[in-house]
């Protein structure tokens, strides 16, 4: 690797460490707060350094890629590999940028073997990058997955020329590209068909003889694993006997050996139990009992893959079973167990040390946010996600708390001048004007501020934003946090009223710009509050030198980006002074709150 590449890697690792609030130790709050501010400043400096490293070195290297030496290309590949090692994925965006550039280069040179390799690399990069889009349904997500599938399809298409391609490593990329088409497709039947075909190929002596050096047995095992991941077809149906048999066979190959060991890996054991349930070999009570035992037997502080599976994924799957079987929802013992399991799940997630924040860990976070089943008797979605925000995205929490505080001030000012301003919102309209309504307006406004960037928690963009500026494609993904946040908030009773604020806070008042298109301002009864969130989010994040400048910038965009009904409040000098005071406090009360929660939980070093 070149020195700038090593340097960038070091910086990324340092940012990851500094970004963990709870990784900073100090004897008392004052010194802890001081260290936090220092860490914040250091992260900002490292970010600038990273931007300069990329702009001054990587981009020119890609610019001159046609003239690059083999050694330079090898260094780029090594750099890309170090940034995405399939476990921590320090910077998937740069990995993709490099391999996408190499793909263009080799296409231009018509270097077929390298095109095949780069198609596989780009496909894998897209797959890992796309994990941040998990649970988000939008045209942009579909387009992303489509591209991913087509990249692997193109790579896999070279199978017909397997005999004609001399290089065995290239043949390996063809096989893996072909197999990975299955992981991109959302169509179960297609996934099964692809895996079935690949299973035939990797067991075919003809192909094996053409590339004897390839790890065929590893390919076989991985393909069985991919096939077994389609076990949902067992309960959903819709496939023929051959396909079902193929899925069952792979489940047997992958999961059965685990069920026979003394210390089974839950990640493989549970799917086996699940398969037995789906096939009707065991009944629901047995399945629930098995699941309860697996959850209870695993210590909460087991953070490896098996531990996270037992402590996080199984409670979520338990919740799914309760959700899908309404009869269970009336049985107190199951709800009580679900509550216990969720609490244990949260304990695992909140105590996991920062070096355990792997790609798999974030996959689990995403699963919790997307699939948590909210029901009376368990902790509310609002509470558990607030805790996750504090633990995993401390900066986001602080920023969102500041937004909440600004929202409260602005909403109060609006209420003073027009108590009926938010009366399109049903639960506010029914309240008589007075102190109770004023408080309700301010409370609601504050929570809208706190949850407006909710979608960012599971998209795991915080670290990337701290590391460097986003690329164009990443920016388009980032914009999906509005849809992601909306969909997850809207699906739960405790958070549904904040969903519109999450969806619409980047839209423009006059509709001429902003995102997403899914937000239709006039159709939302919460639009006045969302208009206010849009203003506050801008004030909070625009990076102006002072609060007064930020306010001036907001006023300059009234009628276009911002509602004139909202910007009118800034004529109130008292409010301007209050906003200035919020910024001047540098979030100290919020840090204090986090510190004391930390001290109380015993997590502080």
């Amino acid at each position: 690797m070149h020195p700038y590449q090593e340097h960038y890697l070091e910086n990324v690792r340092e940012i990851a460490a500094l970004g963990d609030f709870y990784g900073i130790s100090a004897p008392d709050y004052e010194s802890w707060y001081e260290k936090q501010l220092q860490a914040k400043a250091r992260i900002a400096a490292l970010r600038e350094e990273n931007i300069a490293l990329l702009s001054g070195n990587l981009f020119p290297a890609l610019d001159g890629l046609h003239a690059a030496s083999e050694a330079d290309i090898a260094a780029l590949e090594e750099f890309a590999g170090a940034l995405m090692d399939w476990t921590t994925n320090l910077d998937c965006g740069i990995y993709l940028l490099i391999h996408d550039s190499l793909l263009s280069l080799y296409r231009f040179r018509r270097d077929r073997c390298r095109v095949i390799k780069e198609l596989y690399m780009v496909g894998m990069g897209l797959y890992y990058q796309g994990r941040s889009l998990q649970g988000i349904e939008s045209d942009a997500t579909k387009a992303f997955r489509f591209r991913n599938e087509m990249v692997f399809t193109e790579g896999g298409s070279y199978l017909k020329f397997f005999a004609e391609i001399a290089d065995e490593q290239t043949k390996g990329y063809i096989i893996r590209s072909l197999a990975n088409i299955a992981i991109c497709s959302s169509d179960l039947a297609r996934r099964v068909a692809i895996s079935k075909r690949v299973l035939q190929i990797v067991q075919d002596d003809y192909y094996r003889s053409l590339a004897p050096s390839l790890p065929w047995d590893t390919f076989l095992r991985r393909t069985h694993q991919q096939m077994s991941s389609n076990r949902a077809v067992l309960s959903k149906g819709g496939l023929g006997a051959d396909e079902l048999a193929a899925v069952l066979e792979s489940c047997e190959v992958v999961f059965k050996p685990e069920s026979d060991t003394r210390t089974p890996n839950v990640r493989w054991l549970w799917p086996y139990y699940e398969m037995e349930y789906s096939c009707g070999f065991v009944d629901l009570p047995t399945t629930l009992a098995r699941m309860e035992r697996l959850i209870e037997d695993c210590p909460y502080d087991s953070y490896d893959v098996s531990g996270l599976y037992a402590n996080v994924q199984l409670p979520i799957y338990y919740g799914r079973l309760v959700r899908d079987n309404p009869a269970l929802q009336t049985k107190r013992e199951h709800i009580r167990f679900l509550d216990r399991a969720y609490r244990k799940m949260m304990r695992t997630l909140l105590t996991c040390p920062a070096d355990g924040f792997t790609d798999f860990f974030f996959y689990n976070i995403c699963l919790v946010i997307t699939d948590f089943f909210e029901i009376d008797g368990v902790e509310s979605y609002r509470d558990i996600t607030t805790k996750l925000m504090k633990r995993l995205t401390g900066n986001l929490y602080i920023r969102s708390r500041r937004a909440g505080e600004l929202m409260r001030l602005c909403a109060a000012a609006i209420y003073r001048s027009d108590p009926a301003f938010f009366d399109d919102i049903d639960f506010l309209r029914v309240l008589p004007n007075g102190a109770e309504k004023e408080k309700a307006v301010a409370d609601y406004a504050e929570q809208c501020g706190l949850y407006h960037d909710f979608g960012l928690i599971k998209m795991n963009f915080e670290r990337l934003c701290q590391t460097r500026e986003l690329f164009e494609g990443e920016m388009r993904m980032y914009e999906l946090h509005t849809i992601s946040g909306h969909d997850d908030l809207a699906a739960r009773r405790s958070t549904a009223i904040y969903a519109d604020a999450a969806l619409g806070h980047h839209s423009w008042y006059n509709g001429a710009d902003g995102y997403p298109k899914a937000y239709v301002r006039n159709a939302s009864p919460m639009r006045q509050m969302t208009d206010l969130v849009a203003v506050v989010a801008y004030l909070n994040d625009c990076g102006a030198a002072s609060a007064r400048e930020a306010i001036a910038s907001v006023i300059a965009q009234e009628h276009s980006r911002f509602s004139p009904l909202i910007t009118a409040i800034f004529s109130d000098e008292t409010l301007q002074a209050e906003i200035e005071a919020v910024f001047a406090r540098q979030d100290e009360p919020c840090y204090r709150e986090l510190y004391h929660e930390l001290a109380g939980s015993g997590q502080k070093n």
Partner: protein
Amino acid sequence: MEESTLALKQQNEELRRENESLRLRLTEAQNANLAKESFLSNMSHDIRTPMNAIVGMTALAKKHIDEKGRVSDALDKIEIASSHLLSLINDVLDMSRINSGRMTVAEELFSLGDLLHETLTIVRPQAEQRQHAFRFDAEDIFAESLYGDALRLRQIYVNIINNAVKYTPEHGEIAVSVSQEESDGRCVLVFTCRDNGVGMSKDFLQRIFDPFERVSSSTLSGVEGTGLGMSIVKKLIDAMGGTIAIESAPGHGTEVIIRTPLRFESVRLNTGPLEGRRILIIEADEAMQELYRRYLGEAGLLFTIVPSSSAAVSAITEADFRGEGFSCAVLGRSVGRDGSMFELASYLHKADSTLTLVMVSDLNWGEIEYRANRSGISAFIPIPFFRKSLINGLAHALQSVESSDAVSAVPDLTGRRILLAEDNDINREIACEILSVTKAAVDCAANGREAVDLFLGSAVGGYDLILMDIQMPVMDGYAAVAQIRAAAREDAGSVPIFAMTANAFAEDIARARACGMNGHIAKPIDVNLLMQTLRQAL
């Protein structure tokens, strides 16, 4: 005496005839007056109704001007009422033209495929809105180029289908078919529209062509219309020398058959540009596949049909490996109405620069053209298509690519001049090589300063496009563009400038736009992306 008697008799006869004539004229005048009164009565109601909505809603919107939701709702209602009023006025004007003998029926060459595509594009949204099962079939089409008044035929067909849509309760079935018969050297175009809607009584059928007649039904409410449509339809068909037959019964739906004799031109297939070329058809619908097989197979053309996007990518990769690439890929109707068609087009366009992409769709081309072109789609063939419209459409697409008189993979930029600012020798050489196929003249600058000097030293309009590297010695791309845009010359603000850079940050791209560049091309240069940019910009 006899003479006098005869004269008196003659006078009497004359007086009788005159009286008869006067009585007739009186009846006519009375009828005309009645018709006028009836017309005015009907019209005053039909005009007042939408006008009430327009006036009332405008007042309401003004009253609540700060409430966007209410204003928007009022505007929606005003839009609907205005559109209804406009169609009423159009119908009245048509009736007036017809009655005064000022209506002429044109006899111009038109494409049957285009006529039907336009008709279906207009009616399909309403049918979908009412959740009708809408089916269209075309059989025995031997004449695709016809002489007649396509505009009026469309008006007739839209009117008939719209009636079927309106007078059929939701989730109904509407089947439209078109066929042709040859008679006396002419093509009789037979249009049939069948529905399972409310139907009409015999009594009503006798009055259906009278102005202002509308079916009243207890199962349908709020059906809008002027009541002039069928009257106009009948008169237009009469003017074309055609016939209209209607069969209907209450509760049993309606079938309308319109026969219009038209002159036609024999099919001239332009297979030349397609001979020896391989065409890839991406279409999952078996009925559509059969049409392609029939039309392309009978013309002896080389084609492969694949059912999905992934099969298309595989087929193209395989063909490329064998050196037997496809010349043209047809993205069929079944390829993602949800937008994945454009994703596929982009992908294919990036993977194979020589591939001409043709979209076959029942969508409205006007609404999707921009996005389609941006995805690399060069041509559009509307559904329904027939032998000639398919083959000649494909031939035209390939010819256009070769003659570069339309959207094509490699644009012909003969006579155009491009300024290329690039400090890296190899990149400059590669860019020049890529641009050479466009036949554009290319002037090169090794840094931003040289680029500015070349631009300022050229005649106004001397450069049609500038490709600007960003990171360059002496003067970078941002500064160079700022100087070019600030120059005091006519073309300073209008000459298209594109950044060519590996700088991938979203802010870099935003900065390029902010300093006056029209777009951004990532490095290393993707040939197809560059061609696409040139095509769109020039």
